[in-house]
């Protein structure tokens, strides 16, 4: 199988779905990039100067043209709202929010609109829209460009929320998200774009709501998403050498959530660590802890351990930011402590 980066996998998913289904359109700021520049008309007619700020969509305009790859002004409510309206009426738009941190300027178009149409209109509407964007800290992008609000998205009924951790997953889940009939918020972690992994050439789907056990083990279950999965894996690999057997469960989608996949692992280990970058309060860790404490209580041998950032904005300075992000060390220490208890 070909080795590709997470970034390439995202683009490949978009390209293959756009090829397969001409109702799929991309909408966002600089998703092509370079409109009305000062370069010569000939050059402007060919370049994709940005292809998204991180180059994820670069190449798609050349392939699909301006009616499928739609550059917009800086106007997120209109981007997401337009995508929602287009989705209700026959397109399958993929709107790019660039940084998910920007949800605050446009969330009504998901929260009160796209997410609710199907239910509120008695099942008579579908809104097959994907809103893509970046999450995550680690780049000193500071307080307004480093957040991971998938917990907020996950609390909204009617919307599905995907938070993939690997190149393989990101492609299969994005294709599935585009084909899904419900609105999907698709969260790509900045720290993963350069991550490489095996990605099949063909279009394939991964169902939403099915967890992936990235490590199998019997002593402790670590539940983690996105960039945190790799930290959990590292801890599992390290501790295995010492005879501690750690299972790592990556739910991959926050909503729907593979409750069974989580509870099964907890039933077998009885010890739980949840690692979550979203929030110190009302986060994914809390949601899953509540699930376990209510549904798998009798399997638990020890308190559930939550590893989250502190309840603060993301600080800019590298040492502060490193202290903010859940670390391998904290995860390892938590697992060790659970084994002692």
């Amino acid at each position, binding site marked *: 199988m070909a080795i590709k980066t997470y970034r390439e996998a995202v683009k490949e998913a978009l390209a293959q779905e756009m090829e397969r289904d001409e109702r799929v359109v991309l909408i966002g700021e600089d998703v092509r990039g370079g409109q009305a520049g000062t370069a010569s008309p000939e050059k402007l007619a060919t370049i994709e100067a940005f292809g998204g700020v991180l180059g994820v969509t670069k190449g798609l305009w050349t392939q699909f043209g301006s009616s499928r790859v739609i550059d917009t002004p800086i106007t997120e*409510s209109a981007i997401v709202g337009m995508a929602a309206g287009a989705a209700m009426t026959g397109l399958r*738009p993929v709107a790019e929010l660039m940084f998910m941190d920007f949800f605050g300027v446009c969330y009504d178009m998901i929260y009160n609109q796209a997410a609710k149409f199907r239910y*509120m209109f008695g*099942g008579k*509407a579908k809104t097959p829209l994907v809103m893509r964007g970046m999450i995550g800290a680690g780049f000193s992008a500071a307080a307004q460009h480093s957040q991971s609000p998938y917990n907020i998205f996950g609390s909204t009924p009617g919307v599905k929320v995907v938070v993939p951790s690997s190149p393989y997953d990101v492609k299969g889940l994005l294709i599935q998200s585009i084909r899904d009939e419900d609105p999907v918020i698709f969260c790509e972690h900045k720290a993963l774009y350069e991550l490489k992994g095996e990605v099949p050439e063909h279009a394939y789907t991964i169902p939403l709501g099915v967890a992936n056990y990235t490590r199998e083990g019997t002593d402790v279950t670590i539940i983690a998403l996105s960039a945190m999965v790799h930290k959990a894996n590292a801890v599992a690999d390290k501790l295995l050498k010492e005879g501690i057997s750690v299972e790592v469960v990556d739910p991959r989608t926050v909503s729907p959530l593979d409750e069974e996949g989580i509870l099964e692992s907890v039933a077998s280990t009885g010890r739980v660590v949840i690692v979550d970058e979203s929030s110190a309060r009302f986060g994914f860790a809390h949601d899953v802890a509540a699930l376990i404490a209510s549904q798998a209580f009798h399997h638990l041998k020890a308190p559930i351990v939550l590893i989250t950032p502190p309840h603060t904005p993301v600080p800019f300075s590298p040492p502060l930011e490193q202290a903010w992000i859940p670390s391998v060390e904290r995860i390892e220490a938590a697992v060790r402590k659970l084994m002692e208890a």
Partner: protein
Amino acid sequence: MSLTKPELLQAYRKMYEIRAFEERLHLENTGGDIPGFIHLYTGEEAIAVGVCENLTPQDYIGSTHRGHGHCIAKGCDIRGMMAEIFGKETGLCRGKGGSMHIADLEQGMLGANAIVGGAPPLVIGASLTAKTLGNKGVGVSFTGDGGSNQGLVFEAMNMAVVLQLPTIFIFENNGFGEATGHDYAVGGRNITRRAEGFGMPAVRVDGVDFFAVYEAVKEAVQRAREGGGPTAIEAMAYRWHGHFEGDPMLYRAEGEVERLRAEKDPLKIFRSKTRKQLSDAELDAIETEVNALVDEAVSKAKADPYPPAENVLTDVYASY
């Protein structure tokens, strides 16, 4: 006048349907049978109908919290609407939406919307669909004078201009947003001129005159269908009832509504403008028919069953 006699009769029928529907709701609501909030459209019938008589079911509209008139004009079934407003299983949204969320996508009605300014971003999306599929469809958004100050609306106008979308932005200036006058809330006191600043043609029309609305929209729709981009139309009209049912309208002049009912009634104005083509008898007959239809809709809505409690879990992907 470019309209045929059947078209004129149809326009009157629609306007009267709205009138009869709303005035009946006013009574029913006083009786206390209707759940939730109700915002009546009476007095503004010429706008909804003047707009929608230019549209086909392939065209889309997006509406407001004051949406009954838009729904009726766009072809939603009156029985289904009434049942919805009463919260019944037979309602257009099976009782899940209510007055502020009536939708009917088959009729090109994208939904009433209880978020002020919610419709324009969605409608430019419907317009994008039409443009992308090349089907000559248009999208029409309704927004009030109060709603015209919402950021969502400005963004949608700008986007429509940039992408040259087939969108018509209708601003229903009925003088008030809740209890606040448009002269207070609209910077520059001129919605039309503000829209023009976004780079599209914009006109102000007399919103109690069906023909004024109809002609302005006709031109805008034609331009949009031909790829000429968006238009804004500000229709000046009057709200006869309170913001919501229950508002005592302390902020309005004494006798104002009575005067409006006498002088600014879109139906009366229509009648007087069509005296040569339509007889009172013909129009009265329509009214009689519509009254019966509304009666039937109300009795049916009252008799119909509520949705079963288990429906709370249908029409959504989650099962808990």
